[in-house]
């Protein structure tokens, strides 16, 4: 079995599209949440989101290319290009033919779908634009990454709502570890801030009207986000052979399903995913120093995740540092797990644990060391990144410092 390392990271995020800007905001706890500007808000109750601001398609694509690409596909391609450049890689013919592109997307081209259906039902348009389907299909980010970079190996999308990016990284890890592919670009992309999608989330009554405060007693719900993160996964041997910079080892993963409620989280299913991840990585519970939590900022998620962590780690839970990046990044659904995997890899690389921003006061139901507001200088040896999706789908990644 190959050891698998992360050699490149590309992000499109609410706090910047440069990796350094992304990391600086996470460390400083500077939130990307603000008023919604990309769609009309008069019919929305929740008028805040973590938008990718100042994104200009023309800076990255021709008009002809964007005609065929929803915002989600554009985010995916921009992040994939950045990841490859960050890895210092040029795909030669052999690598291009065998490299995998496995991307998590929760909902696909929601803006294109929203616009098309508005034309159809709202304006009684007799026909839709012929690019409607290519733009809204949930695999569009994966497909455009393949076409843009010439990647011709296994390429597909994983859709598991809020765990999509994490599942994608786990599957990609498996393929590189087993030697099925020499390299994978894996992660997630999402651009879900369409009026119809936001209204749907409103109806679930889980959206905050002010901001996202994970693990805080005063938390008021989640805030939707958008963006993309793509990681380059290579074998440790290949990375060393070419003298590549490595951020961290991607050491294992665990995946479980609750087989219970469609929206309510389940501590047992979450705990089982964390245990499976530790077993896959071959690590005991006391080897873990840091958990990048799912931490959505809803009353139920954060308390349930705390209970799951306590169930898995027992006494060691007291010594764990746990933080959520969603106060800074919002909840980017299918992109969330990938953005947080990027954050976890950077935490191990820099020897700094990013804080839980917007923290106000402790909640007895979330009695963990959540690194409130201030980043911590600490070189973690091993870390987890948790993602727990609607539909009861759980995925956990294990990272190790190199």
């Amino acid at each position: 079995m190959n050891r698998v390392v992360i050699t490149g990271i590309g992000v499109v995020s609410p706090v910047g599209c440069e990796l350094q800007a992304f990391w600086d905001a996470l460390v400083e706890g500077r939130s990307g949440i603000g008023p919604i500007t990309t769609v009309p808000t008069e019919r929305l109750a929740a008028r805040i989101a973590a938008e990718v601001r100042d994104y200009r398609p023309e800076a990255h694509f021709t008009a002809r290319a964007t005609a065929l690409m929803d915002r989600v596909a554009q985010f995916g391609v921009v992040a994939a290009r950045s990841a490859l450049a960050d890895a210092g890689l040029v795909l030669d013919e052999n690598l291009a033919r065998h490299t995998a592109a496995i991307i998590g997307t929760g909902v696909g081209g929601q803006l294109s779908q929203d616009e098309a259906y508005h034309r159809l039902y709202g304006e009684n348009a007799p026909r839709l634009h012929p690019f409607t389907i290519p733009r809204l299909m949930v695999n569009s980010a994966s497909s455009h990454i393949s076409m843009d970079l010439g990647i011709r190996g296994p390429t597909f999308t994983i859709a598991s709502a809020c765990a999509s990016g994490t599942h994608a990284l786990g599957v990609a890890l498996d393929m590189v570890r087993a030697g099925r592919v020499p390299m994978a670009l894996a992660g997630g992309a999402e651009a879900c801030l369409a009026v119809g999608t936001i209204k749907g989330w409103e109806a679930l009554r889980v959206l905050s009207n002010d901001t996202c405060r994970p693990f805080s007693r005063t938390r008021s719900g989640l805030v939707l986000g958008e963006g993309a993160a793509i990681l380059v996964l290579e074998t440790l041997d290949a990375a060393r052979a070419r003298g590549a910079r490595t951020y961290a080892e991607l050491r294992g993963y665990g995946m479980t399903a609750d087989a219970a409620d469609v929206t309510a989280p389940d501590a047992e299913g979450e705990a089982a995913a964390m245990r499976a991840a530790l077993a896959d990585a071959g690590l005991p519970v006391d080897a873990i120093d840091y958990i990048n939590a799912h931490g959505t900022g809803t009353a139920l998620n954060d308390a349930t995740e705390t209970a799951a962590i306590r169930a898995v780690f027992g006494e060691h839970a007291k010594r764990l540092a746990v933080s959520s990046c969603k106060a800074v990044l919002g909840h980017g659904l299918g992109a969330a797990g990938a953005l947080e995997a990027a954050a976890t890899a950077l935490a191990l690389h820099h020897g700094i644990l990013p804080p839980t921003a917007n923290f106000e006061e402790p909640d007895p139901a979330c009695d963990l060391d959540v690194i409130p507001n201030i980043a911590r200088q600490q070189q973690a040896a091993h870390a987890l990144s948790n993602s727990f999706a609607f539909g009861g789908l759980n995925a956990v990644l294990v990272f190790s410092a190199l």
Partner: protein
Amino acid sequence: MTDVFGAVTEIIAKHCSLDAATLTADTRLEDIQVQSLDLVEIVFEIEERFGIEVPPNADAESRLEFATIGAIVDGVERILGQSKTT
């Protein structure tokens, strides 16, 4: 009388980044690199411009012949003629 030829060549010229004056009724679409996805987009724009419905390709009996610009113009004029008489 609607200038169908003028409108069709304008749409195709814009789509293919060509000068409309270089297009004639005999211009073959494959010679100006119109691919299948380009063609559905051109048909969409023609439908929008004339407010007509071009029958879907599956309907072989009534499908338009899209090999040349002239054939498209004839087809559009035929549909416009039908809608006038009905």
